[in-house]
């Protein structure tokens, strides 16, 4: 179980893994995620299920190398097994026909966005996607997103691909051009924060999928707590998607940095040894 059957690097730091997990492939819905451990002494890390193939019994994960665990994950090869994999976790995205959807994805956030875009398109919506990254080689899954979108706009910080600018610039043009019924934003917390501020200005209902710190993923520890509408919520069981206009992004950004010092030390140690 949990054998890696396919591996592909999208860029130096972003890797796609297809993993055997028949039960999860069958039970998952767009918006769900898994928690995995790479090895016996590894930590539990959450990753979104980017795609699943029920027939083959596999799920697709897309991970960006940011620290020790994702680094180790990216080193695993086809045929290797993940020691632990549990899911599907989190609430599924509420997918329904609303009209026109604006889907904003930043960096590796495009991975969790993909099954949602697919879902909304299949439900009969018009889907406009805005993909953004620092530079050309960090734009991932463009073809897959195109397959399920009526229109795709690419934004890069440095202008090396698509148009130069931030995700919010691309999004605002669309909003001014036509009526958007709902928006979904997934990416770095800071990107979601500004997307939420933008859509709030235009009063467009917006969902954001949060990537908080997690331990168990089953509502047992509270590590993943965020403040939404003034109330504490657990991202792993109450989310990961919430009404973006109600999320306290500043608190979330602060909480994401909680282990930064320790993580850096661990990462430097890891790099020294390897």
């Amino acid at each position: 179980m949990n054998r890696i059957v396919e591996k592909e690097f999208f860029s130096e730091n972003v890797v796609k893994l297809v993993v055997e997990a028949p039960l999860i492939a069958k039970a998952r819905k767009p918006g769900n995620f898994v928690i995995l451990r790479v090895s016996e002494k590894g930590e539990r890390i959450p990753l979104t299920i980017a795609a699943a193939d029920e027939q083959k019994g596999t799920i697709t994960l897309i991970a960006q190398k940011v620290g020790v665990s994702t680094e180790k994950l990216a080193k695993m090869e086809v045929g290797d097994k993940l020691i632990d994999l549990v899911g599907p976790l989190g609430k599924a995205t509420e997918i329904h026909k609303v009209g026109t959807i604006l889907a904003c994805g930043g960096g590796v956030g495009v991975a969790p966005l993909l099954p949602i875009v697919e879902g909304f398109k299949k439900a009969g919506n018009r889907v406009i996607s805005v993909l953004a990254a620092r530079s050309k080689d960090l734009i991932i899954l463009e073809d897959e997103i195109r397959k399920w979108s009526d229109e795709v706009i690419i934004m890069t910080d440095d202008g090396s691909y698509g148009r130069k600018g931030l995700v919010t610039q691309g999004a605002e043009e669309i909003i001014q051009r036509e009526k958007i019924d709902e928006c979904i934003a997934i990416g770095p917390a800071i990107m979601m924060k500004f997307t939420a501020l933008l859509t709030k200005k235009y009063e467009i209902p917006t969902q954001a999928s949060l990537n908080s710190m997690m331990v168990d993923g089953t509502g047992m520890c509270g590590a993943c707590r965020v403040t939404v509408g003034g109330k504490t919520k657990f991202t792993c069981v109450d989310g990961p998607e919430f009404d973006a206009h109600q999320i306290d992004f500043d608190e979330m950004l602060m909480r994401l940095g909680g282990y930064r010092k320790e993580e850096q030390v661990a990462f430097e140690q890891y790099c020294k040894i390897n």
Partner: protein
Amino acid sequence: MTTLTEYLKEKRGEEWREDLRKKLKGKERTDIPRVHMPEQEPLERVKYQNMEVNLGLTEEQALVEASRCMDCVNPTCIDGCPVQINIPEFIKNIERKEFALAAQSLKLTSALPAVCGRVCPQEKQCEELCFYTTKLKKDPVAIGYLERFAADWERESGKMSVPECAPSNGIKIAAIGSGPASLSFAGDMAKLGYDVTVFEALHEIGGVLKYGIPEFRLPNSIVDVELDNLRSMGVKFVNNFIVGRTASFDDLKAEGFEGFFVASGAGLPRFMNIPGENYNGVMSSNEYLTRVNLMGAASDEYDTLVMRGKNVAVIGGGNTAMDSVRTAKRLGAERAMIVYRRSRIEMPARVEEVKHAEEEGVEFMNLANPVEYFADETGRVNKMRLQYMELGEPDESGRRRPVAIEGSEKDIDVDLVVVAVGVSPNPLIPSCLPDLKVSRWGTIEVGDNMQSSIPVLFAGGDIVRGGATVILAMGDGRNAAKSMHEYLSEEKK
């Protein structure tokens, strides 16, 4: 059918017990002082997360302690034990050096004696009702220590008896969760010939015994032996499997499962909802203990990290709070404090844990309650504001209610706060079974036979009781096994 009283009387009447009673005069027995449990030195043990504090009685100590027990005509101690272990029977077997028989006697009613001997709140259960406590006003017989002695002896002798199992009846049963309730349920069902699979959401089997209670109180190896024992009885364990998510009840039914025992525990941590509680460095005891006990965060070899603090405050007065504060001490805290809103005597923790914590240098701030946390510019907690309390009128629990003293606030420097103010039932299973009756506290409602509103579904442990104890969870598991067997046998007729 013989009643329990008749059975006890019959066992007590056996010749060897009569002979043993004659060996010493009552006065000689009651003059012996209660044994002291040998312990690791506090200064030494606080250096290690995994060093067990209690070392266990030596054989000599156990023999002397066992001889204190009067083998009472009316053994009131048994009334204090939730699973009614035949206490004088096992203790007298220790006295006559039949340690294997003592262990067997324990196993007739308790599935995990080595565990309960270590973690039962004995002073509020069996030992509270011992003749020594009630009539002589002396220290009770050390029932818990002796229980641990017999169970450890059996394990270390390598002669663990694998209980006999009835021939397989091929009926598939699912137990959900792998804490003490499920483990004892699985053992009893396997004995009856059922094909039992235990499903666990986490990557380790054992529930709170593994992820909550630290190794300095309950070594993992003790739990692992019990798990191996169950495996050898044919019980299957599946980790990383969340019933209701990885597969639904209907999926399991389609797989051929005919009976379900839900023992998913009380996994949901409570917070106090006070300002600043979401700052970095404020976390639930579940997170703190899971990182350290399940994920090995105390050791550099593991990837998981845990925040460490110089000044650590743990909020609460239960076992979880004691485990957290002692863990903080072991992770290098200079000041490790318990903040509890009632007084010392009301603390629900086991008396021994409070004593051990105190020996290890834990500070107790009783009659105090945090009302707000403050943080530095990075969002890391750096202060807590305490409000002091006094005890007022008793509340429904019979304990005197703490009342805030106006204007008594005081700020204290902290860089880590662990909130251990209780847990709520895990809502996952009830949320995916609309027909399941739950109370307004979210616990699953069951009858005396542990059967829920869905006939094939039984439940026990913390998901039924809210936060309770290992022994009660275990008793539920046994009770549920008995009832489910009766129910399924009836259905199959």
